[in-house]
């Protein structure tokens, strides 16, 4: 492994880190407030599709990112109303949203672009990299933005009164309520932030990193993000590190596939399972000491 390979593996890992980090940071905020959402896979799908659509209409990738955030927000409103205000089950709407996402994007690609399964995003609708070398390695502006989001999320959650309240409604909503905190409002806000971040992550997939919309574009990243959230112990900064680790294995798999000697020995399908196997091992190894917020996934009804 020479220097250029190290650089390409590093940059590739950073690029793969972004969607998982943004989604898991959002999930951390939502679960800190006590709301479970397993529908991020669906939000990633929708945001990737509409992000690309908006970016192409505007001829600007950043419009796509904002469009993705907006689409995410809409699904956040849906999930928030169902779980926070109607006190419904936290898991089932997520299952529905994930199935809807896969169906709607496959339908949308055919209905809107008239191609089956895949659509290339034109370069004027993609986000231009901050830096690029002759070998095709590049660094997206979304990488520093993601790092900033992680730091801000950590600071807000643990160092501000707003963050304290978010954590209070997830840890002990009865006490928070007694102190005059509007439990439902804080929970709802946390869900919206989480869904908007997942929306940004989804749009990043299509208008930045992959530059294409496919009918399986999320590829389980919504769920890897949930696993990463558990791994982080519900902490945005550790979630950033965890996302980098998963990004690394994602790229390492590609690196092995492109290495003729290794690829000849091990079937590529085995290597493709690596990120998922690593996720399982990491989550299985870490779970004993991870503790979710006490009221995570439980609706709060005022007595």
């Amino acid at each position, binding site marked *: 492994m020479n220097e250029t390979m190290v650089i390409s593996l590093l940059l590739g890992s950073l690029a793969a880190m972004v969607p998982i980090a943004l989604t898991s940071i959002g999930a951390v905020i939502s679960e800190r407030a006590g709301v479970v959402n397993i529908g991020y896979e669906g939000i990633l799908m929708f945001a990737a599709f509409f992000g690309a659509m908006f970016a192409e209409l505007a001829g600007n990738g950043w419009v796509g990112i904002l469009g993705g955030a907006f689409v995410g927000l809409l699904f956040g409103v849906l999930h928030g109303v169902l779980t926070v205000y109607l006190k419904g089950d936290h898991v*089932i709407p997520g*299952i529905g949203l994930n*199935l809807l996402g896969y*169906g*709607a994007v496959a*339908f949308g690609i055919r209905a809107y672009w008239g191609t089956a399964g895949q659509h290339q995003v034109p370069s004027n609708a993609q986000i231009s990299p901050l830096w690029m070398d002759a070998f095709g390695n590049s660094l997206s502006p979304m990488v520093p933005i993601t790092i900033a989001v992680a730091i801000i999320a950590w600071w807000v959650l643990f160092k501000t009164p707003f963050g304290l309240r978010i954590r209070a409604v997830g840890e002990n909503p009865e006490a928070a309520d007694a102190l005059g905190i509007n439990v439902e409002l804080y929970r709802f806000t946390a869900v919206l932030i989480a869904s908007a971040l997942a929306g940004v992550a989804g749009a990043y997939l299509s208008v930045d990193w992959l530059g294409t919309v496919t*009918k399986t574009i999320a590829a389980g990243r919504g769920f890897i993000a949930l696993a990463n959230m558990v791994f982080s112990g519900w902490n945005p900064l550790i979630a950033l590190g965890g996302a980098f680790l998963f990004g690394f294995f994602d790229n390492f798999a590609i690196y092995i596939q492109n290495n003729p000697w290794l690829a000849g020995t091990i079937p590529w399908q085995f290597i493709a399972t690596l990120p998922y196997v690593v996720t399982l091992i990491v*989550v299985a190894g870490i779970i004993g000491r991870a503790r979710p917020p006490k009221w995570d996934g439980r609706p709060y009804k005022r007595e």
Partner: protein
Amino acid sequence: MNLKNELRGYAKPVAESVLAILIGAFIGALVLWFSGYSPFEAYYWLIRGSLTSVDGIAETLAKSAPLILTAITFAIGARTGLFNIGAEGTVYFGAMAAIIVTQYLQNPIAGLLAGLLIGALWALPAAVLKVYRGVHEVISTIMFNWIAFFLVSWLAVSVYYNPKDPNSTLPIPPSARLPLLVKNTSLSWAFIVAILSAIIVFIVMWHTKLGYELRTSGQNPRAAEYGGINPKRSAIWSFVIGGMTAGLAGAGLVMGTPPSYAITQGLANVYGYGFDGIGVSLVGRNHPLGIIFAGILFGALSAGATAMQQHAHVPLEMIKVIEGIIIIAVAVPGLLDLFARLFRRGEA
């Protein structure tokens, strides 16, 4: 008297499922209309393709068989307090196992048993991770689905590929195929296997000690433990029985679906049944008998989708959109009460 109360208990969930289906159809119509298609034309062909001829009905029932089985996987999980969404990957393994085993033992029973057994085995890792390491089954089963996808793809492409047809695996040998119930259709004994499985699961879950233990663990884990029920044992059984039905779904799918009787490239013909089964289970209220009806409904949607695509030119993925909306509607708590309140407000 008792029966009357029991029926009344069923009326509300049935009405809520029907309402969810109507909401799905209505929002689906809006999506069609916004996308520039005629909802009337689309729905006309959807129904015509699935319910108005012997062939259509046969296709509907054939499509429902694997859905009923994967729905049961989810339902058993839900009844025991688990969100087991691992049916998808298990279907791939069930189908592959049936193909492998019938190459040597050219007998349909051997093929079905292979699916059943591999399903139970493939469910164990997720069960062990849940029970002994506390790994949430939503995360583990999704990861196992992806792992199954790549492993079965490898088996399909590199080991059990068909030398005469690069687009598929070796087919199930003729003597191990499930006989057709209606000539020149896809409706085979796989459908009977699915219905029998649903009935067996119903009997096990509601009329045996094991079923009682499983359901009690799901309803109230703490009370179950006080009552001497081992929740770890319940969780493992829940995964294993669920794995069996999903494995059976995969085996039945390749053994009972002409013309190929094989897994096609990219696992295309065995893909998606596990995920759709979740929807079937939710609409069927996680009850084996409700699942039979919901499975036939979803079977009709997918049987009619082809006609809808051919004649109304609507992409068949539209069906998935409708299904997703139905599930989200099912998730709305007190859907019926909510609607009743809305209408009463309208009158006032």
